[in-house]
């Protein structure tokens, strides 16, 4: 093999696959014991194992629901209508900020939950389950930059929408589904949701960090809606 490739080769005594299978508990007990005994006696393998263990501690972002193709496979309006829940905008789960900094009213955030293949519109304080898919929909009288952030019961902040680092433009409309959903993790307890409606594509990572510290301060040119659901 070429020199450059040789330099990149996995250099522990067993393959990376074996290490990962060992850490995942997939090896048969006798194989796992042999593996463990070897690693204990081999500095190179100990180092490799420690590196993999360290990497396994990395906090992963929320698992996204598959982005909707241009023609939605997840007909929110139709589903809501069938469920008899699209009757009025007043059903939207909205607590408008008292200090609206984006001119105008009518900015609202709603949420749909898919549980075991069934879709329902979520109510305020709704109980959801780990593994449920959630997707947000917004109502806005004008085109606006939107973001959805969350703070879970462990105090970890996440950006549910969009996937990029800045709020994303959404066209004016009623109950417009955001093109990205989230699969809920197993962190139990109340999860707070922050819907941002902004006049410009604000940076979201600073807001996520502020959220974890008890904030955030609402950026100029934005208004916010807050609500929550309970995961158990």
């Amino acid at each position, binding site marked *: 093999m070429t020199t450059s490739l040789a330099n990149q080769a*996995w250099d522990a005594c067993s393959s990376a696959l074996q290490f*990962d299978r060992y850490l995942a508990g997939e090896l048969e007990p006798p194989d796992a014991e042999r593996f463990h005994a070897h690693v204990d006696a081999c500095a190179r393998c100990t180092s490799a194992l420690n590196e993999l263990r360290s990497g396994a501690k990395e906090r992963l972002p929320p*698992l996204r*629901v598959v982005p909707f193709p241009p023609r939605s496979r997840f007909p929110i309006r139709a589903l809501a209508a069938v469920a008899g829940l699209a009757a009025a905008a007043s059903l939207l789960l909205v607590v408008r900020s008292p200090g609206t900094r984006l001119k105008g009213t009518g900015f609202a955030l709603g949420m749909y939950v898919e549980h075991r293949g069934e879709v329902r519109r979520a109510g305020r304080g709704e109980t959801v389950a780990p593994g449920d898919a959630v997707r947000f929909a917004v109502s806005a009288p004008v085109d606006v930059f939107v973001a959805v952030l969350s703070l879970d019961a462990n105090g970890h902040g996440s950006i549910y929408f969009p996937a990029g680092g800045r709020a994303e433009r959404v066209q004016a409309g009623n109950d417009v589904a955001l093109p990205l959903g989230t699969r809920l993790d197993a962190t139990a307890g109340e999860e707070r949701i922050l819907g941002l409606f902004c006049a410009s594509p604000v940076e979201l990572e600073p807001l996520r960090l502020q959220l974890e510290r008890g904030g955030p301060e609402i950026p100029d040119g934005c208004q916010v809606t807050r609500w929550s659901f309970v995961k158990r």
Partner: protein
Amino acid sequence: MSLDAGAIERLYRSHGHIVLRRARALLGSEEDAQEALQEVFASLLRAPHSLRNATSAVGWLYQSTTHFCLNQLRNRRTGARLLQSGVAPAPAHVAGRGGEALAELRRVLSRLPADVAAATVYHHLDGMTHAEVAGLLGCSRRKVGYLLERAQRSLALLEQSA
């Protein structure tokens, strides 16, 4: 193994770092690696039976990640992205293992046939034996030897022409 959405979410939390680590090494871009992480598990949400039939969840994730990343490398090449602007900067921990050589390797992998490229990744980057590679590719060890010989010939030719 029950594979409802909750089980897949738990698998994502417990095994997602495997996908992310290998995607970072193969793609050299944090953004692309994060996308690979989401796509691998999105494919599982769409077709959970693909894992139900597998003997090892880790093995399935290796296959799926490799398949996705090699496709991405080929797509980059098709789009002339690599040729025009070079490989995206690798994160520090990847660059630390020889970032320039990995960039060269990505360029080479994008030019190899799919099975040859996959065998190369498994054997040289993941340190797998021929038997392990054969297990993931679903072929004989002899076939693995043949694929790796082809890779070596292709790489030698590419080095000569470089």
